[in-house]
């Protein structure tokens, strides 16, 4: 028996609205199955389960706005047969769920949760009596919770431990109601995304001491190789230049893993999987950064296929939760109509963002001769808390080396 929680689909996410259940109680699910659709600031996202089992109970209902970390459903493990836990959720488990939600609610960042007004004395007494203030109805001015309210709540709690008292709604309903109330003035999706981007980027700029490096990279060999390669393929199988660049980035990260990391708890945490998030601008404005998972292990063809697939789904707001929450580094590629250089803002808790500008033809001196070569400027913005310029330099160097040997990609 385990609880399926609302996942965090990015550092800036605090809650999501459940828009669809793909499963019902009794359904068997496998690890990786998408079981629900959630609307977040980034759009509609499928969320998947991480274990095999049977859906025991759907705790949240469609339309509920659910804070990150809150129980969405109860899944019984693979080994427990569905029949072995026939009573659905027992009282004890309900208590556990309740407790879990308590934690989830109090852990949610304050700015999104409606501030509960409590007198200092009531707060102290609530702590002593173990009363959850989010479930106490305040009788004071504007709903302020006073001592009496807490004491009454404690009395009710004692009379009927955990079992709900008649006027009290199911805890999940209470939470959902509260959140719905907060969201009464509907915010357009694009504004929500803008707000999410604003929050993440402000945090980044505030907290992360960025350092910047740039390197011009000769793409003559790479593009010639790509052209020759594409000639052998039919149109559908052709590989586009961005896939090649991403593949080179993945390879370079295996050489310099320090940039494939998170800065968390005041230390660098190098990530084993190389999940390259790449920024996709949306036509309606805003951007999403889905990840190509395990990019270093993918062939160029697989990389290309993934990119196409993800790009299409991103524009349809059909990304999966794991794709939005697991990037370990970000690449932004301005493409053919963009500027020549881009200096990125790191998406926390990542420690680096790599930018590719437009590929332009430029006079290029090599081997004592000047020729006209296609050149791209790669820029690296990295977190100086996690790495130093030397590391960044090594990375750009490695990237250049791989792009000079495209056949190895």
């Amino acid at each position, binding site marked *: 028996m385990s609880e399926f929680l609302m996942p965090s689909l990015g550092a800036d996410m605090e809650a999501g609205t459940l828009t669809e259940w793909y499963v019902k109680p009794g359904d068997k699910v496998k690890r990786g199955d998408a079981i629900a659709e959630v609307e977040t600031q980034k759009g509609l996202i499928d969320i998947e389960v991480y274990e095999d089992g049977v859906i025991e109970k759907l705790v949240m209902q469609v339309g509920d706005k659910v804070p990150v970390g809150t129980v969405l459903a109860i899944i019984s493990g693979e080994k427990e047969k569905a029949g072995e836990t026939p009573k659905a959720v027992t009282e004890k488990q309900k208590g556990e769920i309740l407790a879990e939600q308590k934690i989830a609610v109090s852990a949610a960042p304050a700015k999104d949760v409606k501030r509960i007004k409590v007198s200092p004395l*009531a707060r102290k007494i609530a702590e002593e009596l173990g009363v959850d203030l989010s479930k106490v109805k305040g009788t*004071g*001015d504007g709903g302020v919770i006073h001592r009496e309210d807490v004491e009454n709540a404690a009395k009710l709690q004692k009379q009927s431990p955990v079992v709900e008292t008649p006027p009290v709604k199911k805890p999940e309903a209470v939470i959902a109601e509260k959140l719905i109330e907060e969201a009464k003035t509907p915010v357009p999706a694009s504004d929500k995304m803008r707000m999410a981007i604003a929050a993440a980027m402000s945090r980044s700029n505030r907290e992360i001491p960025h350092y910047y490096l740039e390197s011009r990279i000769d793409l003559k060999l790479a593009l010639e190789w790509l052209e020759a390669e594409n000639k052998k393929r039919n149109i559908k199988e052709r590989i586009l230049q961005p896939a090649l660049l991403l593949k080179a980035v993945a390879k370079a990260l295996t050489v310099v893993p320090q940039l494939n990391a998170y800065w968390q708890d005041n230390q660098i945490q190098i990530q084993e999987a190389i999940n390259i998030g790449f920024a996709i601008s949306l036509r309606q404005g805003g951007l999403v950064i889905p990840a190509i998972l395990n990019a270093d292990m993918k062939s160029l063809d697989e990389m290309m296929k993934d990119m196409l697939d993800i790009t299409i789904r991103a524009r349809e707001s059909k990304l999966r939760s794991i794709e939005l929450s697991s990037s370990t580094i970000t690449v932004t590629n301005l493409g053919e109509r963009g500027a020549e250089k881009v200096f990125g803002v790191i998406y926390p808790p990542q420690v680096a963002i790599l930018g590719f500008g437009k590929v332009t033809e430029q006079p290029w001196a090599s081997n004592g001769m000047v020729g006209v070569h296609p050149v791209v400027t790669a820029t690296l913005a990295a977190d100086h808390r996690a790495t130093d310029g030397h590391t960044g330099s090594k990375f750009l160097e490695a990237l250049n080396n791989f792009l000079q040997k495209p056949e190895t990609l």
Partner: protein
Amino acid sequence: MNNSTIKLTYREALKQAIREALQKDERVFMMGEDVGRYGGAFAVSKGLLQEFGEERIMDTPLSESGFVGAGIGAALAGMKPIVEIMTVNFSLLAMDQIVNNAATLLHMSGGQLNVPLVIRMSCGIGRQLAAQHSHSWEPLYAHIPGLKVVSAASHEDARGMLLTALTEPDPVIIFEYTSLLNLEGEIPANAGAVDISKAKVRREGKDISIITYGTGLYKSLDAANELATAGIDAEVIDLRSLRPLDEETVFTSVSKTHRALIVEDAWKSVSVSSEISARIMEHIFYELDQPVQRLCGLEVPIPYPEHLETASLPQKAEIVSAVKKMMQS
């Protein structure tokens, strides 16, 4: 023992205190404007000149700075002067003597010079004396380190505070209230010196603490009696000592009632009530079930017309309604 009480006016209580002080200690003398031949602007010292003579009841010129300075000098020279400043309003003229000499000499002399001076000032609003003669300077003096500041709201204190103040090694300012002069009260027949360091619970209650001083005490007690008929049990505290403040009594009371209303006639900003409120918040925040509330004088020059003067001060009705509002939740 002797449990009998006597009935007397606030004025009479003040006079008995001065007389006892003069009788007990030869170093004690009193000076001020019109304290001798005229018998005091409010007849507090009537007859004392005849009883004690010109050496000990001294009429002074109309120069507050001059005679307060003389009082400080006498205190430095080993006397125990009682300086009467006719009303608190004129004390501003002696501010420099009080603040720069009386309050600082102990410090400036490295602890060598105590100034055992007692200054009595009559004060209070409510007699249609208009803006210049209706000041409440209790907060002003309570602000100054080096002074002890007490407020005599009760007959017992009118009778006893002076005697204790005279035993203090350092300057003490006593605020007396002209509006109380004719008020009769009962005190023990053997009443005498009283402690001047503690606030006093004048009425016990469990629902709310009304903290006040001076004439606010009577309005608060009246309000508490009316509130009792509505089933609200208010505790009333007379601060008595405004510097230093007796935090302990206040904190104990508020920790019991969890609600505090502070009442004073002085202007609200930077007042005794703001100080009490701040200290409650700093020290016993988690005892509060309601934000601390204050009823103070409106921040205007005190008006002359009676109805406006009355309206400029917190009155019983406002205290009652403020308490009821705080008790609703």
